C-alpha cells in the first residue's frame, strides 16, 4: 500500500501553512499526526496533491491555562495530554479518554487537533469536546475565528473547517473544582473505535446535580451532544427514575449504522448503557 504522489511542504509558521493551503485549495491537506490521513492515503481514498506537514510549527504545541480556560495546541499528542499535570489536575477526563484511544505507538503521534478536525465519527475527542463545551480556533487567510465544538460537525468528515483553514488550538472552559467526570467506551479490542461511548461531566451540590453535560461517540455520523439528557439530570438527585428518563433521551438521538460493531438497535442500547455507567462513575467522583 503506497500512497499517491504529492508535493511535500513543511512550513514553520501558521501563516505560511495557511498561505500554502489557500494557494492550492482542495488539492492540499494539512498533515498533523497522520494516523487518520496516511491510512486513507495508502488506500487512495485520499490523494492530496499537496501535503502540508504541520510538524514544524512550534506554536501549535503545548497546553496552557489562562484564567478559566485551558488552551491546547492542535499538534499536542495524545501522549502529551496523558502526561500533562495541568490536565490531570483540572481536566482529568481528557487523559482518561486519551488512554482509550488506539494504542501506545499511535498515542505518541496522534494529535488532539487531528482527532477533532478530521470529522471521523469514530474519533473520541469530538464528543468529549462537546461535553466540555470547548471551542476550536480556526485560522485562515482572514485571521482567526472560533467555532463551538457543539456547532462544528455537519456530517461524517464534513465540518465547519474551510479547506484553507487550520484548526490551531482547542479552548476548554475549566469545569468547577471537584466536578465528577467519566468517559465510558465499549470497544471490541484495544485500538478499536467505539461500539458506543459516552462522556459525562457533572457537579453535585449536597446530593443534587447542579450541572450535567452528556455527549456520545460513534452512534451517528457526527458526535452527539445529548442536551436533553443533561437537562433531565440537572436538578435531580440521580434517582433511578430520572436516570432512566435521561438514558432514554440519550438513546433517542442516536442513529448508529449497523456494522461489524453490531446492529443499530444494539449500538443504541449500548449508548444508553455507557451513559448509565459514566453517570455512576462521575457521580462517585464528584465532591459535593
Amino acid at each position, binding site marked *: *500500500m*503506497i*500512497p*499517491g*504522489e*504529492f*508535493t*511535500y511542504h*513543511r512550513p514553520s509558521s501558521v501563516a505560511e501553512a495557511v498561505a500554502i493551503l489557500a494557494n492550492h485549495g482542495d488539492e492540499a491537506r494539512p*498533515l498533523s499526526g*497522520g*494516523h487518520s490521513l*496516511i*491510512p486513507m*492515503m*495508502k488506500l487512495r481514498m485520499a490523494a492530496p496533491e499537496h*501535503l502540508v*506537514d504541520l*510538524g514544524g510549527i512550534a506554536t501549535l504545541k503545548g497546553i496552557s491555562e489562562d484564567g478559566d480556560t485551558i488552551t491546547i495546541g492542535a499538534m499536542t499528542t495524545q*501522549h502529551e495530554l496523558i502526561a500533562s499535570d495541568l490536565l490531570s489536575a483540572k481536566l482529568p477526563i481528557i487523559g482518561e479518554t486519551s488512554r482509550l484511544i*488506539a*494504542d*501506545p*505507538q*499511535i498515542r*505518541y*503521534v496522534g494529535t488532539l487537533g487531528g482527532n477533532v478536525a478530521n470529522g471521523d465519527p469514530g474519533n473520541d475527542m469530538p464528543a468529549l469536546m462537546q461535553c466540555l463545551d470547548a471551542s476550536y480556533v480556526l485560522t485562515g487567510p482572514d485571521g482567526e475565528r472560533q467555532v463551538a465544538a457543539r456547532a462544528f460537525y455537519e456530517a461524517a468528515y464534513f465540518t465547519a473547517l474551510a479547506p484553507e483553514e487550520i484548526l490551531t488550538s482547542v479552548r476548554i472552559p475549566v469545569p468547577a473544582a471537584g466536578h465528577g467526570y467519566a468517559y465510558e467506551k465499549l470497544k471490541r479490542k*484495544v*485500538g478499536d473505535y467505539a461500539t458506543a461511548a459516552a462522556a459525562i461531566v457533572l457537579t453535585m451540590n449536597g446530593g443534587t446535580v447542579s450541572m450535567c453535560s452528556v455527549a456520545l461517540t460513534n452512534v451517528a455520523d457526527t458526535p452527539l451532544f445529548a442536551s436533553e439528557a443533561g437537562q433531565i439530570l440537572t436538578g435531580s438527585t440521580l434517582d433511578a427514575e430520572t436516570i432512566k428518563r435521561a438514558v432514554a433521551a440519550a438513546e433517542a438521538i442516536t442513529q448508529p449504522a449497523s456494522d461489524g460493531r453490531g446492529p443499530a438497535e444494539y449500538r443504541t442500547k449500548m449508548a444508553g448503557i455507557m451513559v448509565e455507567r459514566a453517570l455512576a462513575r462521575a457521580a462517585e467522583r464528584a465532591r459535593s
Partner: protein
Amino acid sequence: MSDIEQIPVTMTVNGKKVQRFVEPRTLLIHFLREDLNLTGPHIGCETSHCGACTVEMNGMSVKSCTLFAVQANAAELTTIEGMANADGTLSALQEGFRQMHGLQCGFCTPGMITRAHTLLQENPNPTEDEIRMGISGNLCRCTGYQNIVKAIQYAAAKLNGTDFQEAAE
C-alpha cells in the same frame, strides 16, 4: 519516473548518521528496509494495527508504516538492529526473550522488543498490567503473550538488579 521533487533527509539511525534523497510518499518502513537495508522492522498489516514495524523515534515508539520518511527528518531512530549491547552481546530484553521463550515464529519480535525498550525507559518497573497495556499495540499470533510478558519482566528485573521471580502459572 515521477516529476515530484525528491527531498533530502538526514537522520541518525542506530547511532549512525544517514543522508538520502527520498520521494515524499516513501513510508518510513520502506525507507528503512529498502534504502537502508534494515529489514528487522517488519511489514505486517500495513494498517498501523499489528506493531511489527515498530521502531524508536526520538525516544517514542512509532509505527513506521504510518509515517513518511520525510517526517523523520532530523530524528534519532533505533531499530531492532540497534538494540544489542555495544559489545555485541544481547541486551537485557533480547536475553529475556531468549530465556523466557518470548517468541515462536519471530515475526512480531523486532516490534515487541523495540516497543518494550521504550516502555522500560519510561517505566523501569512496570506491573504485569502495565506491560500488557504497554504492548497492546503489538500483536503476536503465536505465544498468547504469556512468555512475552515474562521476557519483559525478566529484562526489567535484570536492569533493576533485582531477582526475577517467574510468576506461578
